Each structure stands twice: as structure tokens, then as C-alpha cells.
């Protein structure tokens, strides 16, 4: 598991092994149930996810707090705005 400066994570979405567009779909779905201010951690291995998640956060106006990578697994920390 990737280490992070983010203390509390409210929801974890595991999209490891999922191919584009599934990581973004799972992220968008999970965000619907999130309350404003809550933090979601998304795990993904799809190479496209790095740019996709950043683009998604920018377009939807949510915050991408942190991205880390460990052993081929990308971890994204996102906060609902």
C-alpha cells in the first residue's frame, strides 16, 4: 500500500487490474455517494489513469490532493468539493 500524508480516507475504490475506462467509471460512481469534504482513495494500474484522473478532477471541480505510485499501483487521493 502506498504511503500518504493524507490522514483519513473515507472511501477506498480498488480499480487495480481494471482497464480504461473502468477506473474513471468506478471513481465517478463512488463520488456520487460521497459527501462534500470527504476523501476517496482510488487504486489503479491502468497506464491511462494518471492523466485521466487529473483531467476528471479538473473537469468536475473536485480536488486531486495527492498521487503516488508504488510497485506499479497508482494511488490517487481525491476530495469532494
Amino acid at each position, binding site marked *: 500500500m502506498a504511503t500518504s500524508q493524507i490522514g483519513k480516507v473515507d472511501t477506498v475504490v480498488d480499480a487495480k487490474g481494471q482497464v*480504461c*475506462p*473502468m477506473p474513471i*467509471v468506478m471513481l465517478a460512481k463512488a463520488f*456520487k455517494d460521497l459527501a462534500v469534504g470527504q476523501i476517496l482513495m482510488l487504486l489503479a494500474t491502468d497506464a491511462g489513469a494518471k492523466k485521466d484522473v487529473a483531467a476528471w478532477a479538473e*473537469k468536475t471541480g473536485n480536488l486531486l490532493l495527492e498521487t503516488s505510485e508504488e510497485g506499479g499501483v497508482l494511488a490517487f487521493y481525491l476530495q469532494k468539493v
Partner: protein
Amino acid sequence: MFGSTPQPPQIPPAKQPEQLAPLPMPKEMTPPATANRMAIVLFSGTIDKLMSASIMATGAAAMGMDVEIFLTNWGVWAFRKDDYLTNTRVSADYADKRGVLLEQIAAKKVTSWMENLEGAKEIGSVRITACSHSMTLFDLQLSDLEPIVDEVIGVAAFIERARESAMTLYI
């Protein structure tokens, strides 16, 4: 041997035109607001292209865009009830890659194009319509198609939706 190259005539630098205030646009000429929508003409019924179309639609839905998919010809054919369960057609120009593609889809556990479209409908506003002309050609009713198809419409109705859309794809 041809003598010296003639020098271009010296042109004084052009005067910067004065900045003019934009002309007020009459109300009736105001262009229609561009809808935050992706329109797709889905003509193909081969899984390679259905896959691409479904990923485009899903991506757009995830990015907060509305999606309007207009099925025509083989697009309609591919949405006949239960057909997707046995559809393994690929584009004829890549027929030699069909085996590899099917193997890879199974090996990488890629979600099917139908699952992608179902997912797109869950996260966004996605409307799938079928071309009435193709429905007549193939002798089909809306009830003969997968329930994911919302409606049968004519080309004019789709063109109107596409005209307002931010982008239109033909797949």
C-alpha cells in the same frame, strides 16, 4: 550567371489598425449555446468499433458530458436483443487480427462494450436512439432491441441534437 538576386522592394511596416469595438450582434443572430454533449453516429456493428464507441461514451459521461448515441445500419443490427452475447465480428480490414483481439479481450478481462454503455448510463445522462430507416430495413420494432435503447427517431431529430453538441463522432 543570372546576375544578382533582385532585392524585394522595401515595404514600410504596416500601421496597426485601430481597435474597433465589436459590433453589437442582433439577437436573432446570436449563435445557439453549445450543449455540453457528445453526439455519436454508431454505424458499425463489429466489436472493435462498438468497443471504441462505448469507451468514448463512457469517458464523456464520466467527464460530465451528456451523450447522444444514434444507431444506424449495423449499429442497429448489433443492438438486437441478445445479439451482443454472441457477437464476435471484427472489422473486415482487420479480419486477420480477430483471433488475437478476442483472446486479449478474454485474457485482460476487458469489460464488454454493452457493460461499458450500462456503466455510462449509470454515471451520466446517456441516450441511445435507433434510426427509423434502419429499423424499417431490418423489419425491427423497439421491443426487438436491447432495453438499453431508449427510442426510435429519424435523422432530423438526431441532426438537431448533434447540431447543438460540442462534438460529433462517426464510428
